[in-house]
């Protein structure tokens, strides 16, 4: 029986994004649908086969090189590190990687959590490798892209635990220090589920010794039991449906939990107050064609009400994934904002 609750309006999304973006995101949309089973399980083998991955490259390409490190052996937690380099030579030397990034200038370290609704993609997925390289070039930063454990095989709180482990590891790495005071200057960044992870790791870091200077959330994944106006209005119109959002929350949240669980709805009925807490400043990017924007705007309001510093960047004509290809104005606007957000006045 055909699904009457799905609305396929390819013409709408096709009108608002460049053609190659439409092709890219539609391809994701359809292939992801092939992977989600009705019973809540996931075809992981096919997912890994379909995922386009790239190897790390110790030889700088356009001023950025990368290498993979094992952060935590028991959980096989791997991260891909991206560093800037002026040279063309392959950066083999281990010694060089143990020195601080700089003893004069501050070099921000961005811990990045890729998107994929907690289920898809990896740190070595092509689109995210490209994005992290851009962050390095644009922000003159070092990027640590965390290959966190994904649902449904690993549910809440695994992804947050992995983020926390990565944060501690970054703080404990002398070669990530910079500036005259030789400290690690950490930012958390992520898109979609990665944005959600950013918030939750920052919450965990709140009363700890592991400081986070700022949070960058690109189309962060939040939700709740209620159906918001934007969800009803935009359901199925721009690549995403409410039904698939529900599927991913069911996959990630623990058994018996609903979408008002604080991981999903941090300022909802089960949320934790951030008032008077030392919380990083936040940059939140919301797309006007993202059906969960009401939840994202709600998040921004929640931060404001708790007296936390937050900047909202609302992009009216943007869909999800606009930052994956550099073929639109929003891309450049956002990259500029991110660069300003992580730069330091010396």
């Amino acid at each position: 029986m055909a699904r009457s609750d799905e609305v396929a309006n390819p013409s709408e999304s096709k009108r608002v994004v460049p053609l190659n973006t439409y092709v890219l995101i539609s391809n994701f949309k359809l292939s992801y649908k092939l992977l989600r089973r009705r019973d809540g399980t996931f075809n992981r083998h096919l997912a890994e086969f379909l995922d386009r991955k790239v190897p790390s490259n110790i030889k700088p390409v356009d001023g950025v090189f990368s290498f993979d490190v094992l952060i935590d052996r028991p959980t096989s937690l791997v991260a891909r590190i991206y560093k800037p380099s002026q040279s063309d030579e392959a950066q083999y030397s281990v010694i060089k990687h143990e020195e601080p990034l700089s003893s004069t200038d501050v070099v921000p370290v961005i811990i990045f959590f890729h998107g994929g609704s907690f289920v898809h993609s990896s740190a070595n997925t092509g689109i995210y490798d490209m994005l992290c390289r851009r962050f390095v070039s644009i922000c003159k930063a070092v990027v640590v892209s965390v290959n966190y454990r994904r649902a449904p095989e690993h549910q809440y709180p695994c992804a947050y635990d992995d983020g926390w482990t990565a944060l501690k590891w970054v703080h404990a790495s002398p070669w990530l220090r910079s500036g005259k005071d030789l400290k690690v200057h950490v930012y958390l960044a992520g898109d979609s589920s990665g944005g959600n992870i950013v918030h939750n790791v920052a919450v965990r870091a709140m009363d700890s010794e592991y400081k986070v200077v700022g949070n960058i959330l690109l189309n962060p994944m939040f939700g709740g039991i209620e159906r918001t106006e934007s969800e009803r209005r935009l359901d199925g119109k721009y690549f995403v449906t409410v039904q698939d959002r529900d599927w991913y929350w069911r996959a990630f949240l623990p058994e018996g939990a609903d979408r008002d669980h604080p991981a999903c709805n941090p300022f909802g009925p089960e949320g934790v107050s951030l008032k008077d807490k030392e919380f990083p400043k936040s940059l939140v990017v919301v797309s006007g064609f993202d059906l969960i924007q009401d939840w994202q705007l709600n998040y921004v309001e929640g931060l404001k009400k708790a007296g936390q510093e937050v900047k909202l960047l609302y992009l009216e004509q943007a869909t999800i994934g606009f930052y994956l290809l550099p073929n639109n104005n929003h891309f450049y606007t956002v990259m500029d904002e991110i660069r300003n957000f992580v730069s330091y006045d010396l």
Partner: protein
Amino acid sequence: MGPFDSVGSCSSSSSSDPEKSTTSVKKSEIDGQLAGAGYKVRLSDLRQVAKKLEHLENAMMNATDDVSESLESSDTVHYNPTNMASWLDSMLSELTPLPSSDFPQTPDLFPDPFATATATATATATWPPMTQQLVPYAVVDEEEDSGIRLVHLLMTCAESVQIGDANLAGSLIREMQRMLTQVNTSCGIGKVAGYFVDALSCRLFSPQTAAVSPGTAESEILYHHFYEACPYLKFAHFTANQAILEAFAGHATVHVIDFSLMHGLQWPALIQALALRPGGPPLLRLTGIGPPSPDGRDALREIGLRLAELAWSANVPFAFRGSPPRGSTT
């Protein structure tokens, strides 16, 4: 390291620059931005691929069963997802009841889930950005290419040395030496290739009777290193020892005659295996035949003594006899 070990990468290059006049954009060029994401789609095919995506979406909506389940039958063949057009064709033919008219030729069956993308790419946007001019492109890792070429040349050179074509071998060696200057010879494929090129050139250019040959002691050390580093000899010995153990089962006194003792590296493993034999070790007699040492040392006796010591520590009753080959003077 870890789960990101790459299996292979190739490159593609193109530019997708709307500012250029349409006549200068070749039809066969692929979309550079999608290439960076890991997908090969020709610029001229973009519209068609978009249509296929729409057809696939409709097919999925009209499918009677859960589409994910219908794909999990063992009959489903999955094509290389990088070639989006052909992948979409294959999915369409899986999901639509009528056979599709254009069946792709070569199926690309389910590879290793950790096989990486077939494009190594990065994108550069000129900075500060000019919105229309977006020129991402894919970069070939020249180092990797040189490494692969070196390996091919080495194989060819080794074959030509084997068949005695000194001219070809010589010119290949010169070419490889030139290439070695362009790769990192302190590690990786460059280091391995460097040693092999040296070895081949020694083989080719050194006279038969070398003025300086390694001394016996040095030879022995080299041989030991080779035995340790390379699995082939050890494996051959292992298999032979297995056969010997089987032949010796149930016997209390056994005798091995080694017609080419060399350094006796096969026998410590056998002695240890016999020591652990259920029912206890037999009395092992070993006769080693080998050439007399050029420098007057009784090499055979020394080897025998070492083996005897090992056998004694393993509680294996052992007797050794060294025997120079027939016709020698000792």
